[in-house]
């Protein structure tokens, strides 16, 4: 089963993301912020990470940058979740090593359609 890491400080968004993914048959690991996610990522590999941009302690952009430094995360698809539809944020994400982005708000169907773009 493909494993997905979802990182978001908002409980409701995190729950919606993980329930949607679980219902679609994916294995989901949740993290409430960048530090938690990085801690997990340093010991585990996943098939995809979905990361919120705005988070306390370690934000999504910085997290993405740090993840790309990990040997087992070099080619892992990383999607950043952002409410900003501005070009600036997306570019920041790409520069940090993100594979792509998902613009909030999104509904479960569009989330699944998007992640299928990067899941084998």
């Amino acid at each position, binding site marked *: 089963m493909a494993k997905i890491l979802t990182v978001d400080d908002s*409980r409701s968004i995190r729950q919606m993301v993980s329930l949607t993914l679980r219902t679609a048959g994916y294995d989901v690991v949740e993290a409430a912020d960048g530090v938690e996610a990085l801690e997990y990522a340093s010991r585990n590999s996943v098939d995809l990470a979905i990361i919120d941009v705005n988070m306390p302690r370690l934000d999504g952009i910085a997290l993405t940058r740090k993840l790309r430094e990990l040997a087992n995360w070099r080619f892992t698809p990383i999607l950043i979740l952002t409410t900003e539809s501005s070009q600036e944020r997306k570019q920041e994400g790409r520069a940090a090593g993100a594979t792509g982005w998902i613009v909030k*708000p999104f509904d479960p169907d569009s989330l699944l359609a998007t992640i299928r773009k990067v899941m084998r």
Partner: protein
Amino acid sequence: MTIDPRQFHQVFFEESFEGLEAMEQALLTATPGQVEAETINAIFRVAHTIKGGAATFGFERIAALAHRLETLLDQMRAGKRLLDEPAIELLLGGVDLIRAMIEGARQGIGIDDEAQVGYISRLEQAIKGEAISPTPLPSAVTARPEPAPKAPAPGWRIRFRPDPSILAHGNDVVLMFRELSGLGDFQVKADLSALPSLPELEVERCYLAWQAELRGAVERRAVEEVFEWVADESELEILPIQGRGLPQPAAPVTDEAVPSGAGEAVPAVAVPKAATLQEAVRRVAAEPGGSIRVSIEKVDALVDLVGELVITQSMLSRLKGAVVGELGERLVAGLNQLERHTRNLQDSVLGMRMLPIAFVFNRFPRMVRDLAAGLGKQVVLEVQGESTEIDKTVMEAIGDPLMHLVRNAIDHGLEQPQERRSAGKPAAGRLSLSARHRSGSIYVEVRDDGRGIDPAKILDAARAKGLLSGDAPVDAEAALNLLFHPGFSTAAEVSDISGRGVGLDVVNRNVRALGGSVGISSDLGRGTLFTLRLPLTLAILDGQLVQVGGSNYILPLEAIVETIRLEPARLSSLAHWLELYLLRDDYIPVIHLARLFQCREAACERPLVVIVGYEGHRVGLVVEQLLHQQQVVIKSLESNFWKVEGISAATILGDGTVGLILDISGLIQIAGRVLGETTGWRPHRTASSEARP
């Protein structure tokens, strides 16, 4: 995919309230003009989180307001504005308004528009006050704009040369192509011209380019979306295929003149791309990923199959002695292993049907609260052993009986607060629900500390109803058991006897139908206890094989108290198949099973009497021989044959023959009936006759 975002609303509301609380606290404790950056960041994140959630869950006005607050806070974060006293006041107003709007959303009511409009205009002024133009609302806040309908081309010619670093971002060209092939007929050719010589080749860089054709009524936007994340760093060209039309004769083509010179303008083809997309989604969804939601029928089919496997296994294990020598040893080893695996498999499969009893217990806190409030009583509910696992079928069947017992306890068992106080009890009544697993059964108890049941009143009512004749003394326990009598519950007088008779016969019948039993004990003035004994599972049974009339029957192992050799001198005959037997100092009824079932009585030198007990009643069963003990898979006799008195179910034995499972409580009832007719005896309980645990 049917995920309803509404199910996350509650979490969103709670999380927003928590956030607003934190924001309010931070604002209230802040020193105006000297607020630390991290405090502003924290407040900003609250607004940001609420904005994201509100937009996702469809609360657009909340999202819009949160967005404006976020804009203002962003100015402070950037040092363009101070978090001074007026700003704090303004932000606190925002906290209040958002809180009211979320509360409104939770209750499904709108919020006073004027308050909102007034506040928002103040906020807008503040934002503009620093001569910084407000950032436009992202499309997030309003509905996502539908893409302008564009005439689909017969297809697209795509030229794609990604940046060599594309792989380092986790992008995968193969996946993009997979997506494109889901949109239409997709053909691709790789361009190897940029491929360096082997020594210069860096394996993590992408040197390839592609030329592709996507045929079908696909909107340009759909193609662009595939390349959305990489377009900025790639050379990408998406051009409509010209000239050659789509091989779709049925498609109506408009007669409108094609605007000359417009590269993308092609005849409109009204073929929805939805079909191919749907198909692609279905294909992806069908990929193995594994769900664990399985219908109970499938589990039951599995239970059945495993049952058959157990039978086959026990047939095979009879071969153990059949082969001698080394081959025989290997056979025995293999069969032992098979037996172990089969047993494990059976346990696992039966475990799939087990659920914690909390599923039933969980409905009671609310029900008890409502009932107690309605009656003006105070009730403290205690629940124990809610993690005890129980068969799903059993659980479904005990919901109503339990509900009934709980309702009765609150309605009739527990007293009004003042009545309790004057009886020297705490004003609040205690109701406890518990479940535990003991020796192959589940025990569920419903206990209250109410007024209890007066046996004398039950006896009076029973006599008045004609259920009891004469003035023969009846012990308290027997009197309480009268409450389960079907005739009793219909009597109008029962409500005076704390109403405990109402429907108790139904409770009793339902539990018995499961192969369980209901016990009652009561202490006048102190409370009442109902105990439900339930089978752990309905699918298997630990059985003792016995021989009767040359055939095999199965006795539930847990019912057997002891086995003695029949001494004919101790028998006194009552009926053809029923006799009384002097067991030590007590007479117990003895059933000649072969005679009862009218089968040929096999010549037997020394018959045995198996004493079985059920709910304190004892009866002896005359059998020819005790065979081995084994676990048997229960097959309903009723659904495969028809109901036979004295038989509860059937099974298939190791040699392939059918074995009938004896219905102990049924046999005791039959014996009691006949004994009652001939001697006035009725089954009675003695302390020593408890079934062996």
